[in-house]
């Protein structure tokens, strides 16, 4: 809500963006082609990256420092989102290898176990917990310090949560290596093992990271938990791990990101997660692309009333952009999704607007258009609500 009482929604991104070809190839030690340099030139001009000519010069040199090029990619992604008009941003996780791999690589007690499919031709590296887990060193400090100097908009820091790190890992430490065949290990044993690993990660890896970021001035940290609903009977473990991660930490807003799940599963478990002030959730993936603001028009958003009814009244980060397709949501479609949500909540101040998830599987062209339309659709929703409000008060 703006200071004059008009509705004003906060927009934010969710985390990742695709890495540009000049970063991918530099990281892989591969030579660049003219089209890669052109990419840097065109996008630098398009979104207004200060000093992008310096990058273009750098890319034409035979020897390139991958870390320096990654910092340039951060600048580009920051500007891409700022130029699209997004209020709270991050750098598309350009300096991280990947949301899971980055965290694991900076932690102790894990060993890599290869690559596993996420879906289609998308994969993720998977490690095994092989001993007690702990933090090597806080692994988001450098990027946050850098981005504070590079960004004009506010920063929301995404950090992979404890439960997701646990459930995306094999556990060779807490689970027995033999004696399971023939039903020898009960489900309770499995859940107990998961709880032990998850809470170890929350206490020994996530919480020290959060403390370090707060010391550096972080004001909003988003704990990413795309794996939260993986095991229906472990939702209490997810909730407990969130609470253990953030309890007693002050001076910072904590939120969580959930995606691609049967969201009904989270209720009532997350009633016990009062420290979470915002839930950023993907819905567009389940919705139609037709215009309309009735429940029948918006089947993907039917579940949002459950967040409305949570006793601690968190904000809902409303996913309005499907990150799995190149379909560009029109501003009008975004508007209608927001208007439906406001109607359900009856309180526009409890709605933020965001994509369903990180946009890293889309090209920059597609991601940029989606974000621009998300912002434009948000403005349309504000106009509609403010017009209606003005009409009602005449």
């Amino acid at each position, binding site marked *: 809500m703006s200071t004059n009482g008009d509705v004003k929604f906060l927009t934010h991104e969710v985390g990742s963006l695709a890495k540009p070809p000049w970063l991918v190839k530099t990281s892989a030690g591969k030579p660049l082609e003219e089209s890669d340099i052109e990419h840097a030139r065109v996008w630098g001009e398009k979104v207004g990256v200060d000093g992008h000519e310096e990058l273009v010069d750098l890319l034409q040199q035979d020897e390139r420092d991958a870390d320096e090029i990654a910092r340039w990619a951060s600048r580009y992604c920051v500007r891409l989102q700022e130029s699209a008009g997004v209020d709270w941003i991050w750098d598309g996780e350009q300096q991280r290898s990947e949301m899971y791999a980055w965290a694991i690589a900076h932690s102790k007690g894990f060993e890599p176990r*290869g690559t596993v*499919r996420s879906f289609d031709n998308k994969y993720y590296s998977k490690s095994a917990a092989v001993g007690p887990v702990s933090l090597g060193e806080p692994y988001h400090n450098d990027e946050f310090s850098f981005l504070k100097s590079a960004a004009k908009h506010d920063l929301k820091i995404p950090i992979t949560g404890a439960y997701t790190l646990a459930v995306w890992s094999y556990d060779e430490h807490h689970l027995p290596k033999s004696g399971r*065949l023939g039903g020898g290990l009960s489900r309770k044993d499995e859940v107990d093992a998961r709880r032990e690993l998850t809470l170890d990660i929350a206490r020994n890896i996530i919480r020290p990271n959060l403390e370090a970021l707060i010391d550096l001035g972080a004001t909003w940290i988003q704990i990413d938990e795309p794996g939260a609903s993986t095991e229906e009977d472990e939702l209490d473990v997810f909730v407990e791990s969130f609470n253990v991660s953030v309890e007693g930490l002050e001076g910072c807003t904590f939120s969580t990101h959930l995606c691609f799940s049967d969201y009904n599963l989270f209720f009532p478990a997350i009633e016990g997660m009062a420290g979470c002030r915002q839930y950023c959730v993907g819905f567009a993936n*389940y919705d139609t692309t037709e215009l309309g603001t009735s429940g029948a028009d918006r089947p993907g958003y039917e579940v949002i009333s459950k967040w409305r009814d949570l006793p601690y009244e968190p904000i809902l980060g409303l996913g309005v952009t499907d990150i799995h397709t190149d379909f560009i949501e029109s501003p009008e479609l975004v508007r209608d999704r927001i208007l439906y949500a406001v109607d359900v909540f009856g309180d526009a101040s409890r709605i933020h607007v965001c994509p369903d998830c990180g946009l890293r599987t889309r090209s920059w062209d597609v991601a940029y258009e989606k974000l621009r339309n998300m912002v434009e659709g948000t403005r349309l929703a504000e106009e509609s609500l403010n017009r209606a409000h003005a009409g009602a008060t005449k």
Partner: protein
Amino acid sequence: MQAFVPGLYARSEALVQATRDLDRGRTTQQAVDEQVERDLAELITVQQASGLDLLADGMLRWQDVFRPFVEAADGLDTGALTRFLDTNTFFRAPSATTATPALPQALNGRYFAPLPAPRLVTVPSPFALAQGAGVEPKAVAEGVLKPQIDSTDAELVVLEEPFLARAESVDLNGVGEALEKLGGGPKLALWVTFGDAQPLFEQGLADLPVDGIGVDFYATRVNAIPEGFDKLLLAGVLDARSSVPEDPSEIAAFVPQLHERGVQEIALVPNGDLQYVSEPVARDKVERLGNAKEAAA
């Protein structure tokens, strides 16, 4: 005693990279196809070296266990990206646009690689393919799966069934009617993956009209197998969701427990698709499966 590996096998790091590159426009379909052939050759080699009895192609081109059928059948569409059970792997949930979807022609060698006999092929079970799509299992059995099964010369068709063990209520009669539609050709095995089969056995799983039943023995107790079980038992003894290498001697020691239940025909298999571990881990597990079969013989 037999041993084999149905289902989706893990892609090698080289194939992972090739398919990633394809998505990003950095390589060609031909380059990916060539890498698939190299992966397939490696998979055949490891199966043969491990002494497996029926060769499988690992379904290396399949994006999920439903996709080729959903894309090829009239009246089926790909739906929302959906989590596969309690894994971090997702699939496009099938959705139906008609009550009677139909496969106009059998899928070709792109999805069912020609292999030296004896061999097996894996397809989704009619219950799994119909799940959530809004059609009856019998309809997809008759219209979509039957034409494919009729076209195969494999010794065994494994009907992969990930959902039945977790369904809140199951009409096994309806499942049986659907399976009836698939009979008359190669031997059929219903592979109940990643779940406790005991409640299904209590409802008559063993009586379904198939030649074999697959059971996940990491979720199912041995005494769930009914006395007098007279079909081929696909014993899920490799945990396809664990990176821990199985001890062949432990598997070999487990087999007599199955014999004690009166099971005569046993095939050692994974408890689900080996794509839930990386290719090096999967390869090691296949080798251990062969060692377990040898130790149990």
